[in-house]
């Protein structure tokens, strides 16, 4: 408890006493509650990152929280990746064989998790991978909540219908934006994700560390660096980013960094990476970096040495890399989609764009108007401080738990 007790104190230094006091008061209502979170990977991707911190925080606040992971074979991840893409709007067919393997994998995991799931007061199931677990608990003691981190605003209907048959049995679901919420016969809660200011991805770094990053990746500290951090995924449009870079190069001697971590549940990544390498050809100022999923300090440093961060996604769940960049005081040029819209306030914290040309235009503007670049960066950081840190996320989880555990009215006097 000693180490954990200091965790809240660490956040208090960043967000203030009032915010932490409120979390303690709110969690007092939920003291001793058994809470289980389940997803499909311990490393890689925003879900795992946030759970790494959310669980100890809940425990420090007096809840009894744990995090379990379901495991699957390659075919299982292939199936869930296809599901993920289909929920984002891609027309993909899931073969009976893949679905059978999916269900079988979930069933196998179910046995290992039975002890925790049967005793839980609240179960949070993250994303499609473990969603079918509920089929094995038709009668459950606790409240089951499905947390969807994906942009499901225009899902491919066939696949959504399959998944909906599982999800509709939950007691509630959580969506990152109201645009994503799909009709279901239970309350559809809205909670935006968050970042953790104490994680390796976001902690302050020394100038020495930043200098080393320039050297390590062969970047010239005298020339502007433009960076997109994201998995190598078609929806992040890395090839479009290279196109933007070429349009800017005529006017500014920029360097482009495309850095991505792989996640263990993302078999499609390598194919996209090959396309990116081809598009980059032999340009020495395009740096395509395939980083291990746990190399958070490098990602942190790359964001900090950048002048501008891009997140030119054509579809995006929420876009935690946008939040991270903003927290480091960088303006973000982002695709006008999903959660990016909630964070990038056009002309205030960055720019929303629809094309590589639009991104190029804004990069040129910010490199020419340095004072604007600085001002937007500062506004971006403050916006994240007040709205997108893990403490706000945690408050909403606690509020939701009180709401589902006790009453369903608009107003709950706890």
């Amino acid at each position, binding site marked *: 408890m000693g180490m954990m007790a200091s965790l809240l104190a660490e956040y208090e230094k960043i967000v203030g006493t*009032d915010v932490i006091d409120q979390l303690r*008061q709110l969690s007092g209502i939920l003291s001793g509650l058994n809470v289980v979170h389940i997803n499909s990977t311990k490393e890689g991707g925003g879900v795992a990152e946030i759970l790494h911190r959310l669980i100890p925080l809940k425990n420090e606040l007096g809840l009894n929280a744990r995090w379990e992971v379901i495991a699957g074979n390659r075919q299982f991840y292939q199936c869930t990746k296809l599901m993920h893409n289909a929920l984002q709007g891609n027309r993909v067919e899931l073969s009976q064989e893949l679905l059978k393997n999916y269900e079988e994998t979930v069933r196998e995991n179910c046995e290992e998790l039975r002890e925790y799931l049967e005793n839980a007061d609240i179960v949070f199931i993250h994303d499609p991978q473990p969603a079918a677990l509920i089929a094995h608990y038709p009668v459950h003691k606790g409240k089951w909540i499905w947390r969807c981190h994906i942009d499901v605003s225009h899902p491919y209907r066939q696949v959504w219908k399959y998944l909906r048959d599982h999800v509709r049995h939950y007691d509630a679901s959580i969506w990152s934006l109201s645009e994503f919420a799909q009709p279901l016969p239970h309350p559809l*809660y809205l909670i935006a994700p968050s970042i953790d200011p104490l994680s390796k991805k976001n902690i302050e770094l020394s100038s020495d560390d930043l200098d080393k990053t320039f050297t390590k990746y062969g970047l010239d500290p005298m020339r502007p660096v433009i960076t997109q951090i994201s998995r190598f995924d078609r929806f992040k449009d890395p090839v479009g980013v290279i196109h933007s870079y070429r349009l800017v190069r005529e006017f500014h001697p920029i360097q482009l960094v495309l850095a991505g971590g792989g996640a263990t549940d993302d078999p499609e990544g390598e194919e996209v990476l090959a396309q990116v390498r081809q598009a980059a050809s032999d340009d020495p100022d395009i740096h395509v970096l395939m980083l291990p999923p746990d190399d958070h300090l490098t990602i942190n440093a790359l964001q900090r040495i950048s002048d501008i961060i891009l997140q030119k996604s054509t579809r995006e769940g929420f876009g935690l890399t946008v939040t991270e960049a903003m927290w480091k005081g960088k303006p973000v040029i982002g695709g006008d989609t999903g959660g990016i819209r*909630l964070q990038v306030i056009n002309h205030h914290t960055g720019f929303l764009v629809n094309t590589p040309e639009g991104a190029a235009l804004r990069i040129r503007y910010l490199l020419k108007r340095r004072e604007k670049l600085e001002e937007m960066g500062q506004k971006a950081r403050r916006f994240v401080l*007040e709205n997108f840190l893990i403490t706000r996320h945690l408050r909403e989880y606690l509020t939701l738990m009180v709401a589902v555990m006790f009453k369903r009215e*608009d107003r*709950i006097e706890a």
Partner: protein
Amino acid sequence: MAEAFALKDCALIAISTGQQAQTLRELRDRIETTNQSCIYYHFWGGLLRPRFDDPEFQNDFAVWARHSIHDKPLAERLALINPTDYEDLEDLRTKVVDIIEERLEESETLPYVRASNNFYFVRSQIVVFDTGRRFYDPMELASLIPRLSVGSIFYHFIDARRRTQLGKDDFTEWLKGFDAGYEPLNKQIATIDPYFTTLVELRGELAEVFARYLGRKDGHDGQPAR
């Protein structure tokens, strides 16, 4: 001697209703029938959820009119609605519908404009919890205001307008219970416009009003007012 001031706090969680509007007519139709808590959320919820601190418009209907329907006159008229001017949410609902209908009648094209982004109706649940803190002395409360959570400010200063008989804030109600007149302080509190601001700014304004009044009072007679 007045009763103790019981400091409470609250947190809000948003819930999608699944209802959306693609045109202004659809918006009007949905506003007419939607749950009252949706009206509440779209006027007041912005204070308790992630939002840029310098919003162009204070309520979600005005924002949508400006950025999704691209109708500036409608946005301006909707933005000017001050929800505290209305006795209850039904009156507020009627006002919004009236403004939309008026604009639909004025414009030949507006009824056919399809929004670039749909309006999503959201309601909320509010969890109110007791902080366990009690205050007997306005001075004591005044010194704590700068450190209150924004949830406490929302509960006692905004939400109170729905709960209290006079439709005012909890601080004013409490101060009325003291023998020594706090009328001047109550008048000053009443000048704070709870709309067109953020909760952090509201907290600052309240703290200043309390400090200024009680500081002066303290200076005059050497004793805090009882």
